[in-house]
């Protein structure tokens, strides 16, 4: 069952891409793409990239080197779109709060610089296969992108949690899906890039990646296309008794 070119393998490679295309169409129809343009771009680019790679993979005439060249191109495009998407999620989460938006930007900027440094160090210390440089280089690029992506997502969630800022539902879903995908992919690509695993184990890791990505796509569909119920947060808060007169006096003193 867990073998390359098994039925499950074909399904896990193709189904998420088809679902992503449906998600993109749904976003367009519901006009959600206006609020999430980079998410739509990411969804469509990922779907096209994965379907292209799948077709190349099952076409016998395609040379492995050609497949890896396409993989590289898709990886770079997907990486750029992912970071644009993270900026979009950050803006949606914190732009409504000017008191902390600037602080958040600086913090994420600093974390980004540290992550670029850390991921460069990790790539520098990883074993490089000189015979299949195009392959090991792709693994290292994946590892680098996922280190930065994971770190930025942890910062966004940590920052919003510290200030008790509730992210909009759609952005929470996007960020959660990206986090799940990035953390699992970081672990698996790290193992692939830094250890000499047998082929069977690599295939199992591929299955894990594909299954997790499938789950993330379903999560995005749920968060972005399923209509949300009216928030229960609108309930009136029972406020305790107060010392309004004293506070008014104090405020008047401050205003003088």
């Amino acid at each position, binding site marked *: 069952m867990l073998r390359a070119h098994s039925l499950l393998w074909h399904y896990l490679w193709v189904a998420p891409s088809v679902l992503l295309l449906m998600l993109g169409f749904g976003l367009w129809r519901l006009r959600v793409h206006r609020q999430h343009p980079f998410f739509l771009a990411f969804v469509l680019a990922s779907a096209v990239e994965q379907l292209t790679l799948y077709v190349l993979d099952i076409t016998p005439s395609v040379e492995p080197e050609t497949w890896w060249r396409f993989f590289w191109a898709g990886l770079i495009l997907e990486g750029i779109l992912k970071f644009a998407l993270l900026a979009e999620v950050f803006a949606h989460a914190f732009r409504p*709060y*000017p*008191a*902390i938006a600037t*602080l958040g930007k600086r913090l994420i900027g600093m974390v980004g610089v540290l992550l670029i440094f850390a991921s460069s160090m*990790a790539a520098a*210390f*990883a074993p490089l296969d000189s015979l299949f440089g195009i392959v090991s280089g792709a693994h290292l690029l994946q*590892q680098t992108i*996922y*280190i930065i992506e*994971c*770190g930025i*997502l*942890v910062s966004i*969630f*940590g920052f*919003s*949690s*510290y*200030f*008790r*800022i*509730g992210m909009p539902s759609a952005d*929470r879903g996007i960020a*959660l899906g990206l*986090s*799940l995908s990035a*953390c*699992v992919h*970081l*672990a698996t690509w*790290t*193992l692939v*890039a*830094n*250890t000499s695993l047998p082929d069977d184990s690599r295939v199992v890791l591929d299955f894990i990646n594909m299954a997790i990505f499938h789950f993330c796509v379903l999560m995005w569909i749920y968060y972005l296309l399923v209509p949300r119920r009216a*928030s229960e*947060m*609108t*309930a*009136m*808060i*029972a*406020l*305790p*008794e*107060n*010392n*309004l007169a*004293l*506070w*008014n006096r*104090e*405020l008047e003193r*401050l205003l003088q």
Partner: protein
Amino acid sequence: MILAIILVVAAALALIFILSITVSRSLQVSNRSLAGAIQPLDLEAFRNLTDAAEDDYLRRRLQPADFRSVRRERLRAMAAYVQVAGRNATVLVRIGQSALTAGDSTTVEAARQLVEQALLLRRNATFALLRIYLALAWPNSDSDARPILHRYEQLNGSAMLLGRLQNPAVPLRISGGL
């Protein structure tokens, strides 16, 4: 191999951290118990602790070693106040956010102001705590927490306004002992 282990563990910890935040946010206590989570703060006592004139007076009257000891005690008390102010600010952020969905535009505007001021207080409380902890190491240094006090007073005003708008009969108290 060591690098691989470090990165795999880091990825696992990152995922646990993100999922725990998501789960804890979805299991938050109801709004009704939020207002009860606010701890009253004695602003007058805090004002006394942050008064630079008091510090100057103590510095003049006490031996340097005694002054450092007293100053540390005052700083610890100051830190406790700032921590409570910061916690109250987070509660007020949530109360304000819940009111942002109200239909009444006046309430929404009051809620927006409350959230903004509560976030500023939370941010300032964080920086003030850092300064207080630094001052604990060097008690002779200046640790001015007065901006926190000012921000807290402004925040109380916003909370009161929101409380009045939401429920004129039962307004909000976030401090005591004035």
